[in-house]
């Protein structure tokens, strides 16, 4: 059969050409590798130097734009943007004003705005990430315009992330919520991050109450996914929303059949030192809610000693173990109960109690 191939008049010419091409390709690849290595090393060095120079100029000079060379290559833009973003994260006052000024003076925002319309989606995504790290209010309209024309979901999620860092007022939160609800639910962490950014931006602007208004609006809104409501509560936990105490309790009361919301509310309240729902959560039918409450039980519920001791015989392994650990942290009276359980007839309760006692002794 191979004769059919080998007897074709140009067969060996083609094979020879393929071998030669592969040989040349191999040599070219090696040369490119070596050239690229040298290029990247040079570029890294240049980037580090520029970054250092930009940071120093921003902190020490009155007009940093006059001192710094205008960026032309991609790595120069990257170096400046990193330095500026890091200054914006670490400083306040005059230095940040200079940093924001430098972004427009050196044409950095223009450059990344152009890149945000690049044909390759991950380059657009990267440009959006960099623009959002500047937290420029002026980017809000640009982000909204890009969002409307953007086709990649990945980039759209990044735009919303960028917008979440620019939230200042109630209308911004509503607009963001609308954009978010137009996209498929991504992950709990993403939504939580968005709301965390919103809360911290509002806190910084002294407008924390705005988030409370928003949460009250969506409390009974059936069009908002319960998952999103849960993520709002988790964000409250992460951002320690002291002012949201009453609202968190309202959420706890409004969703008795949604364990995920109950858990988020219990945790968020506990973080701000409010254990008013913990005792109730300890009696919940869902083991995950009982578990979340047990993590803080030693701080508030030692008057519920019989109930917690009974949880040493809970069907859930995690609940048994955490009930024992809560008792171990609960003082002498609780430890007596633990010792009794450790010597008791119930093997499950005994092993959990023995473990907790061992932990405390160690």
């Amino acid at each position, binding site marked *: 059969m191979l004769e059919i191939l080998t007897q074709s008049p140009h067969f060996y010419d083609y094979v020879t050409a393929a*071998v030669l091409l592969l040989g040349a390709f191999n040599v070219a690849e*090696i040369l490119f590798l070596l050239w690229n290595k040298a290029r990247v090393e040079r570029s890294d060095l240049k980037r580090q130097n520029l970054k250092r120079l930009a940071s120093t100029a921003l902190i020490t000079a009155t007009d940093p734009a006059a001192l710094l060379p205008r960026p032309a290559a991609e790595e120069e833009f990257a170096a400046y943007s990193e330095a500026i973003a890091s200054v914006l994260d670490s400083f306040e006052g005059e230095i940040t004003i200079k940093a924001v000024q430098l972004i427009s003076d050196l044409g950095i925002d223009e450059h990344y705005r152009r890149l945000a319309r690049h044909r390759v989606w991950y380059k657009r995504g990267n440009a959006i990430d960099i623009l959002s790290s500047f937290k420029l209010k002026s980017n809000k309209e640009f982000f909204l315009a890009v969002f409307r024309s953007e086709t990649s979901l990945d980039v759209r999620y990044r735009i919303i992330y960028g917008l979440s860092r620019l939230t200042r007022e109630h209308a911004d939160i509503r607009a963001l919520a609308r954009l978010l609800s137009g996209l498929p639910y991504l992950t709990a962490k993403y939504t939580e991050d968005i709301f965390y950014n919103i809360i911290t931006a509002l806190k910084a602007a002294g407008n924390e109450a705005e988030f409370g208004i928003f949460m009250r609006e969506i409390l009974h809104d059936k069009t908002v996914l319960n998952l999103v409501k849960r993520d709002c509560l988790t964000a409250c936990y992460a951002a320690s929303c002291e002012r949201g105490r009453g609202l968190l309790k309202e959420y706890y009361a409004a969703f008795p059949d949604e364990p995920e919301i109950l858990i988020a509310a219990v945790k968020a309240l506990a973080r701000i030192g409010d254990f008013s729902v913990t005792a109730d959560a300890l009696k919940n039918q869902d083991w995950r809610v009982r578990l979340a409450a047990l993590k803080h039980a030693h701080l508030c519920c030692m008057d519920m000693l019989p109930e917690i001791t009974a949880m040493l015989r809970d069907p859930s392994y995690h609940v048994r173990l955490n009930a024992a650990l809560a008792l171990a942290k609960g003082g002498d009276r609780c430890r007596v109960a633990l010792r009794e359980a450790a010597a008791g007839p119930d093997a499950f309760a005994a092993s959990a109690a023995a473990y907790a006692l061992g932990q405390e002794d160690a």
Partner: protein
Amino acid sequence: MKLFLLWLAVHASQYVVFLYFLVVNSVYTALILLALRDIVRHAYLTTSRVARRQLASEFYFKPVSVIVPAHNEAAVITASVQALLNLHYPEFEVIVVNDGSTDGTLERLRLDFSLLPCAKPVRLQVPHEAIRGVYRSSAYRHLIVVDKVNGGKADAINAGINASSYPIFCSIDADSLLEPDALLKSSKLFLEDDELIATGGIIRILNGCTVRDGAVTEIGLPRGFLEAMQVLEYTRAFLSGRTGWNALKSLLIISGAFGVFRKDMVVAVGGYRKTVGEDMDLVMRLHRHCRDRGIPYKILFVPDPVCWTQAPFSLRMLLKQRNRWHRGMIDALLANRAMILNRKYGATSLIGISYFVFVEFLGPLIELFGYVSIPILYYFGMLNERFFVMLVLLAVFWGISINIGAVFLDIYNFRRYKKTSDILRLCVLSAAEFFGYRQIMLLERLIATVTFRKKGWGTQDRRVFEQKGTTV
């Protein structure tokens, strides 16, 4: 008639070998191209400021149990555990499972980490041999040691799963070192994607690198030919192979040396099965479990979390390892044979498993057939010498391209090997592989194919990988 049949057989076999050569090399080339796209995109997105900020965020994690099965690892266990205790991670526990060691591994751990007996209740969720005792370090509260009767690596990890407290677990070999941010990088994927059930990072060769305080401080290509050759093989297997399979949604292996899993899913499939290829077997069963039940899932390889592992430094050890890998692969394929060419399992079966059956399993047999047929055809005057020479040249040059392509993926994106001499040596090794090394490995894979029913791991010699910052 007989002569005609012989003629037909000889010619048909030539065609099979030629076709096999074309298909295999095309697959490898396609994998490199897919991997290049994936790696460049991944590198772009994970180096952004937002990504780095999220990685550093204290809220951006799920607690992880790191499980280290250890059988006769006294030489390396202390350094390995110290490296794990130094991981940058907000909440994790390290569970070392002493799998019936006879070289004093448990004693070493007891002395070096002040272990005390602990009454931790262990749930029997997945089966394993009896546990003799559970210990907790009084110096490091998140270090737990489980001492059990010997049952093999899979059995030891099962015991670790039962003793673990967290929803995600990471299994790592005792002779391996994780980079400090490897756990953060791999576990954050579980936060970003609710469908993710398993992920693995890249395994790199520790030989030739300098280790200080449980961390790799200087990266270099090992001096020995065999060790350096393995660097090339690992680079090819992980950066072009697994990244490529990733893009095709057909990843079938998450290395046993470093894999991160959702515990509930592993428990749902009954944990690890006692076999020499427990890593591939588990991933195949996870695919099967999810597909059978219509559970949306993802199994991903990510190229930036790095685990450094010791590679065999003698030919005897290397052959033993390759024999074990091949036996493990055959065993996993046999155990999950229902997935072979089964449309129900989608791309995983039609692309991933087909590759393993037709290239990895049947490949050595076809290659051997090719080598054997050359002298026979020559003897009977049926060898087209010109064609033969051209085919060999084409095979070697194409193979070199694939190897250099893998080196290119690594050096271009990750730049771990920074010395020019190391890069050039990798390029030379890309060619050297075809002159002896490949044939020796082929022979061992054939032996493994014949003896695949053989159980057991055998022993591996270890080098102590830290002597005050010396090179491994």
